[in-house]
């Protein structure tokens, strides 16, 4: 099994979520994060002092899926998250060795 973690723009979350769910992946977990990248920060002022917010709001969306589903979900997320402007984010794929569904105790593939 693989963990597919996408860092996307907050305003694309709804689209990404729908795309993933449409693929049949009901299970996913989302977290509000802040990202730094080649996207520039936002300059702000506070009582005369300038400062830059260079950690911009992003959404991390994680779905743990079967190995064979990885390509499709990457594709779906990419399509939904893409705006073609700097800051669209990244997708990271990493291995998951075991999954347990707490409610039933099921493990492995059936727990997804």
């Amino acid at each position, binding site marked *: 099994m693989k963990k597919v973690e996408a860092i996307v723009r907050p305003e694309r979350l709804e*689209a990404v979520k729908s795309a993933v769910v449409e693929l049949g992946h009901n299970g996913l977990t989302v977290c509000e994060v802040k990202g730094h990248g080649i996207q520039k920060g936002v300059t702000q002022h506070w009582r005369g002092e300038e400062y830059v917010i260079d950690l*911009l*709001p992003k959404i991390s969306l994680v779905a743990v899926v079967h190995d064979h589903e990885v390509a499709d979900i990457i594709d779906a997320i990419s399509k939904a998250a893409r705006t*073609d402007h700097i*800051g669209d984010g990244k997708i990271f794929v990493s291995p998951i060795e075991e999954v347990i569904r707490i409610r039933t105790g099921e493990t492995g593939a059936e727990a997804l």
Partner: protein
Amino acid sequence: AAAVTAETPGAPTLAEVAADTGTVKIGMNFFFLIMGVCLIFFMQAGFMLVETGFCRSKHAAHVAMTNFVIFAVGALTYWAVGFALQFGSLGAFYWAPGAEAILNGEAVKAGVNAFAGTKGFFLGTLGDGTYDPGVFVFFLFQMVFMDTAATIVTGGMAERWKFSAFLPFGVFMGAIVYPLYGMWVWGGGWLATLGANYGFGNGVVDFAGSSVVHAVGGFAALAGAMVLGPRLGKFKADGTPVALPGHNIPMAILGTIILVFGWFGFNGMSTLAATDLRASIIIANTMLAGSAGCLAAMFLVWKLWGKPDPSMAVNGMLAGLVAITAPCGFVTPLSSVIIGALAGFLVVGSVVFVERVLKVDDPVGAVSVHGVNGAWGMIALGLFADGSYGAGWNGVDSAVTGLFYGNGGQLIAQLIAVVTVFVWSFGMHYVFFKIQDAVQGIRSSKADEIAGLDPGEMGVLAYPDMAGSGPLGEGSLAAEAAGLVQPKPVGSEA
């Protein structure tokens, strides 16, 4: 008796007692107005809180700022221009001895109909000024009414109104639109004299501003919301409205309670004198109508949608208050409850209508609360006024009496006012915003709207310490609106 100013302390003459009585009477009535000014001014806080609470956190500082700065802009504008246009030809008036020294300009007239005042610019400071306290307190009282009208508009246009475009609006409203309509109804203008000149009841009667303040503001908000267009993501491609929940419900409820508090002054002190004991009846009517509006709206939405939606309970309370503002002095408590309850139903229907049928995006319900119910309040007076108060109003001897008590003429006057205020405020602002949009652009950039007007236009976050206090974006996003523009498919250029 020792406290009476007298040559022989403790034994004042009749003239001395009379002098003190006169001073105390005037002092008290001015004091009464001053408290009204305080209470009405404080409604700025109420509007700020309701509107900010009903908006999303990424725009919170921006919405709060418009509600705050409008007061400064409005106060200076009204001092410079608005007050003179509205009341500069009022002449002498019983509660303001001395007013004639300033407010005695020749009105701009067409036949018997007056359209604008002509004296008292800058309170006369730049020339013919006097320090007449009656004029000053009257100015203050009228200024806070005007600022209320102006601040209503910031709600309907919230979350996408460019701050630099909002400022000229404040000047336009405070110098032209509000004062002129106000002159017509309260300054001896053509609407006020519809009774004396043409026999329609007591002419247009609007006790504390259902039309002068609320409908002017609400219909201006409608014009603004239409010219601005809906917020990004408010309507789906097929026109279905999308819920964009406000970020702070307790804040909106606090704002509403503050507004009710302010309404004591708004309606109650509009007798302009503590010696007019009607104030207590007015306040009782006001509270009953607001309460009825709150419960009516709450129970209706509960029935319709399953939950007693706090945002509609809030709107219902305000709708009831707006509706009773014109008739509060002239109707019975029972009529007040009826007027308020109908306002509560009306506001729910209107919110749905504006959003689903007109497809206009009014984030806080300004059009429905202030526009629609301002109009309803004017009509309600024409129906429910029971002839127990207002003899002599607008120079007509009979007391103010509505259709249900036998005077259809009053209702006609009220209907003329409703049409006039809609045409005038909606029309003037529609044209103003359209021209301003062509010249300056009145809508915030898409990038700022997506990222939040706070970082974009204010340069600060409202809540920088809170996770999730609104996303930030970058100028490069301008081409895209959340959920509205389909992102290009990946394949098309990879």
